[in-house]
């Protein structure tokens, strides 16, 4: 499977999983999904991107849908008032999206970090070997030999 295809599959799966969790009130599934994304994607930069996108999508989609159905204005203004930001309807929307992004991002970062440590552990021969090979190629002393 190509890296691009794997990225897309993991991302779509992550969004769906995260959305399902939130619908059930399990908002932390966004974070857990991020962890899974981090573990699943090999390259370090792709995991946080996918995690952030999945969080963004999962936490934005219901807002977009609600806005289409009955309008977010009164609700957003009410939440802003409760937060002490009277009249600033955009703040709750932005905060909601940020929370989603942060959960996805942090989860995927954690997942990627775990993967990084686990795959480079001394007890993991294959990964150790890859590391040795790269070191040998780049080591000028060994090249001289």
């Amino acid at each position, binding site marked *: 499977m190509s890296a691009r295809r794997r990225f897309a599959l993991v991302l779509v799966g992550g969004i769906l999983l995260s959305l399902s969790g939130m619908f059930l009130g399990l908002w932390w599934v966004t974070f857990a999904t991020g962890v899974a994304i981090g573990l699943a994607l090999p390259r370090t930069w792709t995991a946080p991107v996918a995690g952030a996108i999945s969080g963004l999508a999962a936490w934005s989609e219901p807002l977009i849908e609600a806005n289409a159905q009955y309008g977010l204005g009164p*609700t957003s203004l009410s939440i802003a008032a409760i937060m002490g930001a009277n009249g600033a309807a955009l703040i709750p929307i932005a905060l909601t999206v940020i929370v989603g992004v942060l959960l996805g991002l942090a989860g995927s970062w954690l997942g990627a970090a775990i993967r990084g440590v686990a795959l480079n552990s001394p007890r993991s021969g294959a990964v150790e070997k890859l590391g040795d090979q790269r070191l040998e190629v780049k080591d000028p002393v060994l090249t001289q030999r």
Partner: protein
Amino acid sequence: MREHRLNASNASSSRLARRVGLRAVRFLNLGAAVLVSAALLYVSFFGAGPLPALGPAFNPETGAWTMGADAASYGTQTLHLDGLQKPAKVVLEANGTAHISATTDHDLFLAIGYVHAKFRLFQMDLLRRQGEGRLSEVLGRGSNDDVLNSDRFELQLGLLRTAQKEWEQLPKDNPSRIAILAYAQGVNDRIEDAKRTHQLPAMFTLLGYEPKPWTPIDSLIVKGDMTQTLNFTDTPLVMALLDKSLGPDLTAEWFPVLPPNPQSPYDPGPYAPRTDVGKIAPMRAVSDGEASAVASLYDRLHSLPRGLIATGGASNNWAVAGSKSVSGGALMAGDPHLHLTLPAIWFQVTLDSPGYHVAGVTIPGAPAVVIGHNRHISWSLTDAQNQQTFFYEEKEDKAHPNQYSWNGSWKQYTTVSYDIPVLGSSPDHLTVKLSVHGPVISERGLTTSVWWAGNVPSQDFQVLLGIDQAGNFQEFRDALRDWYSPTHNFVYADDQGNVGLISAGYYPQVAPGCEPWLPMPGTGEDDVIGTIPYEQIPQVYNPPNGIVWSANQRQVAADYPYYIGTALNFFDPGYRANEILRFLNDKLQKGGKLTAADMMALQTDTRDYLAGNMVPFLIRALAGQTLTGNDKAAYDALSSWNYRMDKDSTPASIWWVFWQSYLSATFDPWWSTHKVKVDRSDGGNSNPLNDMLGQDLEAWTSRDPTNPAFTLVGSAQNADDVMRAAFHTAVVSLASRLGSDPKKWTWGRIHTREVENLAQISGLTYGPLPDSGDRFTPLAAPDFPSAHGPSWRMVVDWGAQTFSGIYPGGQSENPASPWYSNGVTTWWNGKYAPMLDFDHAASSPGAAVWRLQA
């Protein structure tokens, strides 16, 4: 070779170092990820500081955003309710008014419970938590422990114990028991629904808890909350402090039993004779130890959150007999004055079932119409304000630990223990001691217990349901026989043109010679021995003049043979009652007959009766004086004033500031020289102390202008001297506050009104906006800004069969709902909405129908 080995060794070391470094970086990365994730998850799960738990709060599917989904869920639909016996219907008018029709009475109450919880669940939860001492469980200790102190006090006072007794004493087959149980089922149906569909009110999500199931005790507690707010008073403590500082003679003179000025009692007598009436003067002197203990208790009570102690009431109601109305039917008007909140204390309904056909307002949490009408009668209420709170100083001795002396023997205190759950800390343990008088609420200095009529178990829902079903005055009066507390003036009008007014409730009596206006000895001689017989409580039915009216004034004349409280405890000065009577009499004399429109005009009347009495004296005192500048302009404005506290009136501002200045100029020197520990400014202008002192000032100004009270004021010798100085002070104060142009000193710049959000969220409060009225006008608006006033206005014309009502709020507590505050503007503008019956509501534009099925 050696060099090669050396190089190889160096390379190996370097490789190792890089590997170790890279691994360290990866571990560092993991550590950082763990830390950041942990912090984010902590804030998301538990919140931090002012931040709520971000995850559940902002989850768009189940968090605060569901306010929008809830607001969109009021349309026509079918709902399934556990416990429903037969299908029922709820019609919601376009303005949110709910009309419930059921084929059994049980289902009617179940449906009320469901509808209340659908629109007011968080409010209901707060109300029960307040009375049950469980606010700390969800709010924490509060700043300065104010939330926990509220819980402690409530558990000491005993609303919960009383509610439990009431429930135990309610017979199994009693209709009100059936109603309360069915109601609880309906509330719980809604709680389950809301949990299942993630539609719990947003405040639950933001505070991070879910409501527990509703119980019958909760409904009884909600009623207890209202009783406490309306008549748990501390006046004997205030009197004791006044006695200690001003002295017994001055206190008796300034704070008498009977009001010093003419009032308009609605029950003028004649009364059945009784000879053993207690007299207030001469008053006994309060000892140092007693004063110290009282001061401590007074401070404690006044540090409690607003609403736990009744500090004054203000409501209006009146009725006009059919013989005096244009329509030929009786007219009735009622506007109970309460704290104005969003959501409101009221929820408007129409109820139809085999046993009930009633419309009006209910209190969320309680399954009965409190104010309203049925097919034959209408009623409303005002607080009667008689003394229902008595303090007792228990006699103790170190030789008899945990006992008190009563009726000649030592008696063991009963104790009850509570563990108050506190959010964020360990439970707070509380032990409450109970004497025969009631709970001990202070042990500082002296052990003080309180006898409060609200702690006498009563079946108030049975009474309310009896009123809801009454068909004539006899049935109405019979139903009220079992109403104990708070004492209310229930006004009555019916479809036969009859009118009446009855001040139902307990009027506790102590033995002759006792001094109930002060804390009394708890040794038995001063105990409450009974209440005024029901037949002799203030009441009137179809009086000759055809009108009945109440506005918290003393209901009876000076020759009423029973003690019902002092002028300080805490009857209204009577200005609104006098103004209502003046208005009605004036109309009857001029036009002969009254209309519903007249009733509405009177409910929003802004004429200040006290100003009408006092301003002429001020004008006379200023006449002949050389006035210049702003003093002259203010004098001219007052000279031509109509005594209306309209928001665009400048003389209204001048009058009010003058009156406060006059009060201060007269009494502040006494407070200062005698070191009076009762704060005159406490509670703002709602302070009953100021009401009483104002009555004294009115009396002295008009009939005793050389009263010695004036001689402490600088070089003043009489009322005129003090008035002139106070007038000048008022003008200077207004110029300083509102600018030098007297034409811009409009009342609305000083006096505003607001409808406060119940959770004190300022962004969800309506106002403050400039508004007319003051605490003495029928359109009651005390304080600055005023958050107290007509909480519901109802006008009934039985001849024309028109029923109108409005309250300053909306049916829903959801701020995103179109029904959050939709009634405020109509109410603010003095307009009304028709109170439709079920059929008219069902066919009204924009109505939604809920079909309820099992």
